[in-house]
């Protein structure tokens, strides 16, 4: 095997390199200062700068469909958009970390380092086309996350969440790797580009391959919390510090779906009846489980956690659509667009949940929002926008996300799935309306925490405005996504 690394390879992976180098800055400074924390705003600026540089490099060098490192990584439209979504979500999550009581203060530099190395893992994950590369990205992302959650200043729930996530996550990784081994055994390679060409034949004839690919799918299902592999989600989302929850619910989910999309969304694979039926039912079950369970929650974070399970179901519909379609770009861009809108609104909802936490162990229930509209009209309006967008009420971005997703599904003849999807969004309206009811229609003394929240407030308002504005210009945006995938 010829191991030559050209300049083009280096340029292609430059976003990851830049991010990695930037992640070292806060840590190095801390060591040089004799283990004293530098001003948190400086740390945050360094991190954001790193993310921006990385995003810039990604836009310059990514997106053209080039491969690097012997077809181990590919830089096409999916890489570009999903990478940008991940970097953006990471930036917002870091701004939240800067102000959340469970994450700010001591060890902030270490936390930022971990978050950024997790983001490096994400960039690897979105560009990986070799199953082993996928695994490396997945693990790099997840290991940093386990540590981040465990580092929370909160003493009990976060530790439980970290351990739970670690054990179940490792189990899922093991399943994934097990599946990869079978695929290697049956095809003699782990590169997706290599074995996907004759996947249809392999699925029909090779039990071993079917077995392997099923395990790989299971591994992904765990990561993106597809029911019935979602059981860790509510506990981990609730126990983790809210900024980390936001990070997991958006960035981690988006990149995992990117890899999921890349691995399974090909006609030759999903085109086979077995996998198609299985995925279809997984999507339906996930939507129903997520939405019905969310109705029963009182804890705000837990409710959004279950809603994020439901959203995984919607996205899976898009992934299946992308898989069965001849024109792969349409379905895939539906998925990307949906994840973009989902990232904006979920980040916003979690950001407001984070602002309500008075201390690191404060649990925010939905009923605690009573009277919020009177005290903070601006923020409650923003939360209303996020929730209505999550519910898919026009003219928000969330509506157009669903519209493009289900449009693609109907176009591919998956009418059945689209109907399940829209009916579920009716169920979802019920619980998305609850916080709005409590905020506006009940009297109470809800208020944000006392500490400074300027950065988060600005971010929240910007995202709420973006959801409305992008809703109106969603057409060109969607076309841009679709064009970059062709």
């Amino acid at each position, binding site marked *: 095997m010829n191991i030559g690394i050209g300049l083009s390879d280096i340029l292609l992976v430059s976003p990851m390199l830049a991010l990695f180098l930037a992640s070292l800055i806060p840590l190095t400074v801390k060591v040089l200062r004799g283990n004293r924390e530098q001003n948190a705003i400086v740390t945050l600026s360094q991190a954001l700068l790193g993310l921006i540089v990385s995003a810039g490099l990604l836009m310059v060098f990514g997106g053209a469909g080039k491969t690097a490192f012997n077809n181990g990584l590919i830089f096409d439209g999916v890489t570009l958009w999903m990478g940008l979504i991940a970097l953006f979500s990471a930036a917002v999550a870091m701004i939240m970390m800067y102000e959340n009581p469970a994450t700010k203060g001591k060890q902030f530099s270490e936390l930022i380092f971990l978050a950024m190395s997790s983001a490096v893992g994400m960039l690897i994950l979105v560009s990986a086309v070799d199953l082993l590369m996928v695994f490396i990205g997945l693990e790099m992302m997840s290991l940093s996350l386990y540590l981040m959650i465990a580092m929370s200043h909160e003493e009990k729930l976060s530790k439980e969440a970290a351990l739970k996530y670690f054990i179940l996550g490792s189990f899922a990784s093991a399943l994934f790797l097990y599946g990869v081994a079978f695929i290697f055994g049956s095809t003699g390679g782990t590169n997706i580009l290599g074995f996907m060409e004759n996947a249809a034949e392999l699925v029909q004839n090779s039990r071993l391959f079917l077995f392997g690919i099923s395990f790989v799918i299971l591994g992904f299902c765990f990561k993106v919390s597809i029911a019935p592999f979602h059981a860790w989600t509510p506990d981990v989302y609730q126990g983790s510090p809210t900024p980390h929850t936001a990070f997991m619910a958006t960035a981690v989910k988006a990149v995992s779906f990117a890899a999921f999309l890349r691995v399974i969304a090909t006609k030759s694979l999903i085109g086979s009846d077995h996998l198609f039926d299985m995925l279809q039912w997984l999507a339906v079950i996930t939507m129903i489980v997520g939405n019905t369970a969310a109705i029963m929650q009182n804890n705000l974070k837990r409710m959004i956690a279950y809603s994020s399970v439901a959203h995984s179901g919607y996205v899976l519909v898009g992934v299946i659509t992308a898989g069965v379609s001849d024109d792969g770009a349409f379905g895939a861009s539906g998925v990307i667009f949906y994840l973009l809108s989902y990232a904006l609104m979920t980040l916003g909802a979690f950001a407001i949940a984070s602002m309500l936490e008075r201390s690191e162990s404060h649990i925010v229930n939905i009923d605690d929002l009573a009277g919020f509209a009177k005290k903070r009209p601006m923020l409650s309006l923003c939360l209303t926008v996020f929730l*209505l967008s999550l519910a898919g*009420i*026009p*003219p928000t971005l969330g*509506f157009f996300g669903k*519209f493009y997703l*289900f*449009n693609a599904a*109907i*176009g591919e003849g998956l*009418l059945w799935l*689209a*109907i399940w999807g*829209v*009916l579920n*969004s*009716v169920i979802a*309206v*019920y619980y998305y*309306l609850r916080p709005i*009811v409590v905020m*506006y*229609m009940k009297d109470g003394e809800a208020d944000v925490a006392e500490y400074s929240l300027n950065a988060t407030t600005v971010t929240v308002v910007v995202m709420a405005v973006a959801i409305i504005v992008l809703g109106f210009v*969603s*057409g060109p945006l*969607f*076309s841009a996504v*679709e064009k970059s995938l062709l």
Partner: protein
Amino acid sequence: MILSTIVFLPLLFALIVAVWPNAKTLRPLALGFAVIEFIVSLGLFQQFDANTASLQMVERYMWIERFGISYFMGIDGISLWLVLLTTFLTPIIILASWTSITEKVKGFHVCMFILQTAMLGTFLAMDAIFFYVFWELSLVPMYFMVGIWGGTRRIYATVKFFIYTMAGSVLMLVAMIYMMYLTQEATGHMSASLLEFYKLKIPFVGGTFFSLQTLLFFAFALAFAIKVPAFPVHTWLPDAHVEAPTPGSVILAGVMLKMGTYGFMRWVIPLFPEASEYWAWLFMLIGTVGIIYGALVAMVQPDVKKLVAYSSVSHMGYILLGLFAFNAYGMNGGLYQMLNHGISTGALFILIGMIYERTHSREISKYGGLAGVLPLFTIFFFIITLSSIAVPMTNGFVGEFFILMGTFKAQPVFAYFAVTGVVLGAVYMLWMFKRVFFGPQGELVKDEHHPLHDLNAREITVLVPLVIMVFWMGLFPNQFLNYSKASVDHLVNHRGSYNLTISESGSAAATQVSAEAVPTDVKAEATTPAATEAPAQGDK
């Protein structure tokens, strides 16, 4: 530009009201804005050509090119009066809420104006997705209006309202997307334009539920039937009406219910002609059942607002009946009844709101002998009651008469039963009137500590335009029907192959705008042979 102005002016007003610093001048400001909007909408008459059935004052720009979704507005005889009804009722509602809305006044008026934009957009949008955006958007301000300013069970009522309506409309969205793909199949490029939808020939197989046109028909019809609300899916209405504040009830009864019947006229009947005809019996049946059931339930209500709410179910049943009679009488009557119901039921809710402000009770049994104490109020209430039970010379008579005539012509069986609704309507309204206004004085009326005051100048100002409309529409229906006649006749006569052209001979300004926007598209549609104007059936 007049249509865009009419639709989006309230949105601008909402923004101004939202940032208006002075709380004292807020109400006069909002009222002034609503009056301006009404005057602007009167400008429609100047440009409107009553002799053509085609779409006028069209504005069309590409919005989402990928899916052929456009910013497409147009007006014809069917939507003209509904637009004017909306702009006419809004200032009245704002004036009527002068003293009843005391909390969060600013938020209330913002909701009001956003709602106005959503409703007007629903009536004027000629693109499926554009329409859907307004259709769903109208839920949000209404939801807040009931939920924040409503009665004791407001949260239950408002959530029920939201979920019911949403549940109906999502399937319509799926159907719309499906039809967009049908246009792609038929013409090669996808379009969400209603005019393109009209050109589709959707296969229909009678006798089975699972034929394409039938399924699409029901997906649309369910959404609109819930909004109307037709009989089995009406249960959100009494809750929402009773819990809503007076202005909320008025706008709900006055305009929002019409969005449902308008949907039948604009979307369901012309888009799915065979299915509509095949299933007409079903909708006439639920219309008839609604008439009788609504009337019977209204009769036994102890709460006067709930009584009026159920009377809405009954009246809306007439409209459904008229529309599905598929003749000129029925359709014209249905359209006319939409306006009548908006005026008379709106006025009833305003009157109930006025008395509620004085006594804080709506229980019929606590009243009695009100006529002696509040003579002016009694006179107004009596006039509106007569309009509601369709006494000749009032507007209600014209609409109900046409509908029943149309039904007799089409399906006499349904008419036999529907006619009983006329009697029942008189029974529940007059019985209620007797118990509230005559007889011995009830406990609320004779209460020495809270003497009741008759209507003040503001309240009279609120009611006078409504009463004028009651008689104007009752005595000179032609002045109104003439504007909608061409469109309604076109719908009746060309139901099977409905086609709407874009008027070139409208106002120069409007045509110019549309011609500049998408010349090729518009001209392509405009050059299709204009449907010949068939002689009007029946003498109105």
